[in-house]
């Protein structure tokens, strides 16, 4: 009792003293220590810097405005709208959208269809995202922007390289024994040619916010802000390498996109590691981040400790984005972020780790313009996925993730993107706001199997048990569009576009197998099938080959290292292949597996046409290049079932997979193409169109539809 009272007295005394200090300050005692000093100093500093920034912005604004007027840039003088909002939904399919509109699932798109515009949007040859989005932003065909696929081939060794960007080590290095010290930063070269239309807008003084449009890595300078999208690598420099840490003994390698790492027992707990990029100093040595796992079998949880972070996950839970710092042997480091997913706890322990993304708060490679834009978004919303292909389709394909885990990851990224979009809308009251969402593409790729009546990849799932993932996806997109429509006014042009549509991918076509069976590819003696990237191919007897999704190449003498086809015979060979492949039927069903073969010199025009494949193969509905053909493997079979989760696709005949165009404006043109978007935007902002554009600007039917479409939004 006495003790309690004593404590209480002391508390009272302390309180009295504190109050006395505050009420009767003596000058020399007014200082309350570093804590107060920090708070006051930091707050004052923030306000001071903010004040300086704001004053600078406010005081120089009239000067900048005057400067623009003097230079003849009355930015919005001839603009039809003060703002254009372009929402890109990668892979949104017009037939599905129309079907769901008809079923009453998409009220906001239905409103746009009835009061504005709904069209099929002609895509590119081939209908692949990096190709189509490059055309979207540059207004030109691939012959002028140089992107024909995700991958291009090196004619000196028949190996692939990323078509959009080249990342090399620094120009200068210092070699000391076995160590190589980089003197400078990595060199990044964008391979996409042509000028995105927001550069023209920026030059005219029209501000642009561009978020995650594919093939914008490395980011180029212009007057606006841009966050790079598809083709941004992970910290390893790949397009996404996940890591599956497991106690299960297996020597199997994942076909693509992932590595298996053992979990080892360590006393009462376990430990494993996240593989990182190669050590820039010690050649061939991989940097790693160790982490510890402490399972709790009673609670069905595991505590994971990574560097300074510690968190507990239930089975089926993802962590937040965890910052990691890979340290090299000479003090250099690379910062990244990744998420951990507890896949299983017993009898075996399994932890999936996402590819290590470039940390947007501390980007080791530039992923935005200006560099501070990715930092700004990171400070505002917290860490977010920066990898180009952020939704880990490979992990679902390899059954490391299940459907729900994949969807949780994909929609997590989608929600982050939504926040960025609405911030960009707020920050761009005038000008261009363009944002591309990838979830539509990834979810359709992975869940089309549940939409088909009889997809080989879903035959083990009864029809009444199949989740309506794609319907939910379109509903979600529709809700987002409704939210955007509520935030825009009559003076805003809204365009909803996709780069291509979607079709089922039930059957694989081993085109290299067909070429082999028909004598165009020869293998080395004693071999009936090749390994990846044409190992075991006898180039001295090979006339044509395929790699990537749609391209078919002739082995031209003087161009390819071991070329044997004379330039003068190339056209005849192309005609021969076209004649044989066009209309190729699947013997199992009698369906046409290839509905068109196109000579690139007929569908492209421009200075980079020499980098294009010789032929483009357009697969039929339900077909696509096989997984083996894509990676340059020659097989003996030609057609086979696709039993992977990756069950929908668009890398087929471009005529079968147009994209969508919705708008709050009535567009008079009946035929619209993705190549028309850039000229249309420039025209609507009153700018002159560059003569090299291949697209044509659309004509608006009337302006009155705008108000109707934007003011009456379904919720």
């Amino acid at each position, binding site marked *: 009792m006495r003790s309690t009272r004593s404590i209480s007295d002391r508390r009272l005394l302390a309180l009295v*003293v504190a109050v006395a200090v505050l009420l009767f300050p003596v000058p020399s005692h007014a200082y309350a220590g570093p804590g107060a000093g920090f708070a006051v100093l930091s707050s004052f500093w923030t306000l001071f810097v903010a004040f300086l920034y704001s004053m600078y912005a406010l005081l120089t604004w009239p000067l900048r405005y005057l400067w623009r007027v003097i230079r003849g840039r009355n930015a919005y003088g001839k603009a039809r709208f003060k703002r254009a909002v372009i929402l890109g939904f990668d892979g949104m399919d017009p037939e599905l959208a129309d079907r769901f509109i008809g079923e009453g699932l998409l009220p906001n798109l239905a409103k746009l269809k009835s009061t504005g515009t709904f069209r099929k949007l002609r895509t590119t040859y081939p209908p692949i995202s990096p190709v189509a989005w490059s055309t979207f932003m540059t207004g030109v065909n691939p012959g002028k922007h140089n992107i024909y696929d995700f991958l291009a081939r090196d004619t000196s060794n028949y190996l692939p390289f990323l078509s959009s960007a080249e990342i090399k080590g620094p120009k200068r290095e210092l070699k000391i024994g076995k160590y190589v010290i980089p003197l400078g930063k990595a060199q990044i070269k964008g391979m996409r040619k042509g000028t995105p239309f927001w550069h023209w807008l920026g030059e005219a003084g029209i501000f642009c916010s561009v978020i995650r449009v594919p093939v914008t890595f490395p980011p180029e300078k212009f007057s606006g802000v841009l966050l790079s999208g598809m083709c941004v690598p992970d910290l390893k420099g790949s397009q996404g390498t996940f890591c599956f840490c497991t106690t299960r003994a297996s020597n199997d390698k994942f076909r693509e996109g992932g590595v298996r790492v053992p979990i080892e027992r360590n006393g009462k707990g376990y430990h494993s590691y996240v593989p990182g990029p190669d050590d820039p100093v010690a050649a061939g040595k991989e940097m790693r981040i160790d982490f510890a796992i402490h399972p709790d079998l009673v609670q069905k949880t595991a505590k994971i400790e990574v560097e300074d972070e510690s968190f507990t996950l239930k089975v089926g839970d993802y962590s937040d984005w965890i910052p990691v710092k890979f340290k090299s042997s000479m003090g250099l480091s690379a910062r990244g972020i990744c998420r951990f997913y507890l896949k299983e706890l017993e009898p075996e322990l399994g932890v999936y780790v996402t590819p290590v993304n470039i940390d947007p708060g501390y980007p080791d490679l530039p992923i935005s313009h200006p560099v501070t834009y990715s930092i700004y978004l990171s400070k505002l919303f917290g860490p977010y996925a920066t990898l180009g292909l952020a939704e880990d389709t490979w992990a679902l394909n390899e059954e490391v993730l299940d459907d729900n885990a994949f969807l949780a990851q994909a929609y997590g990224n989608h929600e982050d993107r939504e926040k960025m979009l609405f911030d960009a809308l707020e920050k761009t009251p005038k000008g261009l706001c363009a944002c591309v969402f990838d979830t539509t593409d990834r979810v359709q790729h992975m869940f089309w199997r549940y939409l088909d009546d009889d997809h080989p990849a879903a035959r083990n799932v009864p029809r009444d048990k199949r989740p309506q993932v794609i319907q939910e996806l379109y509903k979600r997109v529709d809700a987002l569009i409704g939210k955007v429509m509520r935030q825009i006014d009559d003076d805003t042009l809204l365009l909803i576009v996709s780069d291509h549509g979607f079709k089922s991918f039930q059957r694989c076509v081993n085109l290299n197998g067909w070429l082999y069976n028909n004598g165009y590819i020869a293998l080395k003696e004693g071999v009936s099938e090749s390994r990846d990237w044409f190992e075991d191919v006898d180039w001295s007897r090979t006339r044509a080959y395929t790699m990537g999704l749609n391209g078919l190449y002739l082995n031209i003498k003087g161009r390819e290292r071991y070329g044997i086809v004379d330039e003068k015979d190339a056209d005849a060979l192309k005609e021969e292949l076209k004649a044989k492949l066009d209309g190729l039927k699947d013997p199992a069903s009698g369906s046409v597996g290839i509905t068109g073969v196109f000579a690139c010199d007929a569908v492209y025009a421009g200075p980079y046409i020499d980098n294009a494949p010789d032929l483009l193969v357009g697969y039929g509905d339900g077909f696509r290049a096989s997984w083996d053909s894509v990676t340059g493997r020659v097989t003996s079979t030609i057609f086979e079932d696709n039993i992977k989760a990756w069950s929908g696709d668009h890398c087929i005949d471009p005529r079968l997979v147009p994209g969508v165009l919705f708008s709050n404006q009535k567009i008079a043109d009946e035929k619209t193409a993705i190549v028309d978007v850039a000229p249309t935007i420039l025209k609507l902002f009153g700018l002159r169109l560059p003569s090299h554009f291949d697209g044509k600007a659309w004509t608006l039917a009337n302006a009155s539809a705008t108000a109707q479409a934007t003011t009456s939004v379904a919720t």
Partner: protein
Amino acid sequence: MTQTFQTLPHTLATGLMFLNSPLALVIILSVIIGLLMVILFYYTSDQDAIAVAKDQLKAQLLAVRLFQDQLAVVVRAYGRIILGTGRYIKLAFKPLLIIIIPMTFMLVQLDWYLGYAPILQDQPFLVKVKTATSETVNDVSLQLPPELTISAPAVHVPSDNEVVWRVVANKQGAFDVNVATAGQTFAKKVVVSPEMNRISLSRMRAPYWERLFSSSEPALPDNSPIKAIDVNYPERSYQFAWMEWNWIVLFFVLSLVAGFIFKSVLGIEI
């Protein structure tokens, strides 16, 4: 707790007395207390919320820079910076309230060592007695030990109820000066030394929280005719970085610097 925060600086100061350099003591104490306060801040604050609040502030600062052509955006961002600063200060307030209590005790204790110097031998100093009533002023006498002598007649200020003596010490040491009135005697300690020492400026008849700032001696009785006995010890100043500093200002600067260094090393959000 009060005892701890009174004892800790005393222990620190006496422990570091061997340095025989008040400046070195201020520097070392600044570093140690800077570290302690940062750690205390860590345990008493919502680190996650502070990190978020700071990130939000940084984001708005970047927004002003990134969207400087959009006047409305700049103005909105500035407004959010002001709101965000308020949020941040609110988050810092709780640890601040907690820190302010031990900090007050510690600074007061340290002030007795670092704020004032002891009297020097042969250096005149004043002993001031404040009486409870003006009638008592003429009835007060000062009784000194042999080492101290009065060097000038007492000055009586009845309007302020004060009597002041000028005194000189002819020897070093700690002595009691006794003030006698109405048959009672009240002692006050006087320290004569060239070295650093614990100084009590006054002996008072006052509540604890009032005595806390200037007296380390026991209170005078509540019914005492004497309200206070003061000794005017000289204030210390410190020569540092080509400037003359009050110790508390120097401590403020150095503990902040130390705190900023330690918070970075320890990864603490402030």
